[in-house]
C-alpha cells in the first residue's frame, strides 16, 4: 500500500463528508452574493479577502483537528498492515489538505469564472490554498501532540484566535508603546511571524488600497511588491507549512498508538 492509495482513501472520504460540503456551499454562496451585489472585481476581492482570512484558517484548523482525531482508528488499522508510518502520515495530511483546497477552490472559483477572473482574484485563491495547507499542518501537529480530543480542539480554536485577533492586537500595542522609535523593520519581522499577517500584507500590497499605507506601505512594497516579493511571500508561507508539519512528522513516527 503506497501513499497515493492512503491519500485517495482520505480524499474520497473527506470530500463526501457533510461539513466539507457545507464549507464549499458557504464559500460559494458568499462569493456569488458578492459578485451579484458588486460587479467591480477589486471590491469583491477586498470584501472576500476579509472573509477568507478569517474563515479559511478557522474552518481548516477545526475540521482538520476533528478529522485527525476521528481517523485514529483508521490509522491504527493501517499500522497493523505493512505500511510505513511516514506513508500514512503524508497520505493523511495531503489527502485532507487537498480535499479542503479543492472544496475551497470549488466554492470561490466557480462564481468567479462565471463573472470573469482577474489576476488579483487568482492571487487571492493562491493565498487561500496556502492558508488551507498551513492550518491543516497546524491541526495535524495539535492532533498528534495531544492525546485528548477535547483538549486538542480547544487548543486549535485558541491558536486560530491567537493568529487572527490576539497577535494583531499585540502588534498594535507594541506599536503604541514604542511609537517613539522607528519600527518599520520590527513590524516587518513581526508580520513574518504570523501566516495570516503575511497573507494580508501580501494581498494589500497588490491592491489599490496600498496607496493608503504611506511610508510603512513603501517598505512593504519594497519587500513584497515585486514578483520576487510575491515569491518571497509564498516562500514564507511554505515555511509556515513545513515547520509544524515536520515537527508533527517527527512526533508521529515515534508515537505509541
Amino acid at each position, binding site marked *: 500500500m503506497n501513499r497515493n492509495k492512503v491519500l485517495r482513501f482520505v480524499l474520497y472520504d473527506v470530500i463526501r463528508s457533510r461539513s466539507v460540503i457545507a464549507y464549499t456551499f458557504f464559500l460559494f454562496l458568499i462569493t456569488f452574493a458578492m459578485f451579484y451585489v458588486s460587479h467591480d472585481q477589486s471590491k469583491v476581492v477586498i470584501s472576500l479577502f*476579509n472573509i477568507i482570512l478569517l474563515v479559511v484558517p478557522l474552518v481548516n484548523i477545526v475540521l482538520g483537528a476533528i478529522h485527525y482525531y476521528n481517523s485514529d482508528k483508521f490509522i491504527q488499522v493501517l499500522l497493523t498492515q505493512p505500511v510505513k508510518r511516514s506513508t500514512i502520515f503524508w497520505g493523511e495530511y495531503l489527502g485532507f489538505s487537498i480535499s479542503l483546497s479543492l472544496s475551497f477552490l470549488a466554492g470561490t472559483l466557480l462564481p468567479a469564472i462565471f463573472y470573469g477572473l482577474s489576476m488579483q482574484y487568482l492571487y487571492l485563491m493562491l493565498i487561500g490554498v496556502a492558508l488551507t495547507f498551513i492550518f491543516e499542518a497546524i491541526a495535524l501537529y495539535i492532533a498528534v501532540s495531544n492525546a485528548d480530543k477535547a483538549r486538542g480542539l480547544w487548543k486549535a480554536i485558541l491558536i486560530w484566535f491567537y493568529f487572527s485577533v490576539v497577535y*494583531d492586537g499585540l502588534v*498594535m500595542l507594541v*506599536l503604541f508603546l514604542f511609537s517613539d522609535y522607528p519600527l518599520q523593520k520590527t513590524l516587518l519581522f513581526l508580520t513574518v511571524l504570523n501566516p495570516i499577517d503575511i497573507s494580508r500584507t501580501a494581498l494589500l500590497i497588490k491592491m489599490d*488600497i496600498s496607496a493608503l499605507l504611506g511610508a*510603512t*506601505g513603501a517598505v512593504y512594497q519594497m519587500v513584497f511588491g515585486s514578483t520576487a516579493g510575491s515569491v518571497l511571500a509564498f516562500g514564507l508561507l511554505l515555511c509556515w507549512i513545513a515547520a509544524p508539519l515536520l515537527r508533527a512528522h517527527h512526533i508521529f513516527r515515534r508515537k505509541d498508538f
Partner: protein
Amino acid sequence: MGRCSKLYKVGDAAAVGLINPYGLLCAALLSFTIIFQAAGRTLYAGANSRYKTISAAIAAANTGDTIQVRQGIYKEGTIEIDKSIYLEGINFPIIDGEAKQSIILVQANHVHIHGFTLSNSGTSNLDDRAGIKVLKSADCSFEKCNFRNTCFGCFLFNSRHCNIINNNFSGSAMNEMNSGGGIHLLHCDSCFISGNNISGHRDGIYFEFVTHSIIRNNFSHNNIRYGLHFMFSDNDSYIQNIFESNSSGVAVMYTKHIIMHGNDFLNNWGAASYGLYLREITECSITGNTFKKNTVGIEMEGTNKAAVTGNSFKDNGWALKIVSDCDADTITGNNFENNSFDVGAYGGNGHYYFNKNYWDDYSGYDLNGDGIGDVPFQPVSLFSVIVQECPDAIVLLKSFIVQILNTAENMIPAFTPSMDRDNAPLMKPLTIKT
C-alpha cells in the same frame, strides 16, 4: 471637447455673477467685450494670399482689422501682436514654433485669436515659452485653439479681462522641471476660463496673484502635478470643472474668498495624492462637489471659516483629513460613502463642526422618524486615532482586529477617544445637487 459638453454661453457669466459677487463685475465686462465688435478691414494671409506670412499681415493691419489665416503650416518665429486685431484661422492653420520659441506674443489690448493649432514651443531654462504669451494686456480673448506640445499653453502676465475659452491643450510634460502650466496666469484680474480640455502639463491651470476670475466647465486631466493650482489668488471661483487622474487634483494655497462649486475630483490616487488640498485659506465655500476615488478627498491645513456643504465623498481613502490649525470650519449636509476613513484629524487644536451629514458607517436609530439619527456619530474612529499616533499601525488596515474595534465602537461609543462628533447624523443619503 469630450467630457466638457457644457459649452460656454454669455448667460453663464451672468449666472456666475449671481453666485459670486466678484464675478458680477467680471460678467459685465465680459458681455461688453463680446458686444464690442469694431468694424474694420479683413486681410488674408496664406500661401495664395496677398500676405504670405501672418507677421506681414499683422504689420499691414490697423487697429480693429481682422486677419483671416488660410489653412497651412506657418513657421515664422514668434508672431508678435502689438495692435488690437482679430486673428482668425480658417480650418485650423498650424503655427509651428519649431521647438525654438514662444509661438504668439501679445502686447496689446483687444486682441482676439481664434481657431489655430499652435505646436512645438520647445522648453527653455531661460524664458517661459508658451503657445500664446500675453504681457500687460486687457480685454483679449483666445478661443478654439489647439495647443500641442507647448511648454506653457496660454501664459498671461499682468493682464486683465481676458477670456480663454474652448481650447484644447495637450502637452507632453515629463517632469516638473521642464514643463509649464496649461493655462498659466500671473498677476491677472477678472479673467474667464471656460470649456478647456487640458492634459499633459505640469499644472492644468495655474493661478498666482490672480483675482476676481472664474474657471468654469474645464476638464483638466492627466497632468503631472495639479489639475488646478492657486497661489495667493483671492476672490476667484471655479465651478463645474472635472479634475481627473492628475498627480493631485486641486491645490488652493494662501488665499481667501474662493468659491468651489460643483466640481468633480476623480481618481487622484497615489501615496501622496489628494483631491483637494487647502492650505492657509480663509473664508471659502466648497459646495456640491464630488470627491471619488482619491487617496484623500480634502486635506485641510490652516483652513479657517471654510463651509463644506452638500458634497459627495465616495470610495476615498480618507474622505477628509484635517491636519492642523483649522478653525471655524463647518462640514454640513455631505454624503460620506464607502471611504476607508471618513475623517482623520491630526494635530489637534482644531475647531470644526460636523452637522447633518450622512455617514454610511452610522448605525444609530431614529425613533421619531424625522430622518435624523438620535445618537451622535463620531466620524474619527479609534483606529484612525491609533494611526495618527503611530502611522505604522496602518498596516493593520483590513485586519480582523480593526473590524472588531470598529464594531466595539458602534456598540460602546465611549470607546472613541476623539471628541469630534456629528450630533445630527442623517439616516439616508442626501441628493447632491451639482
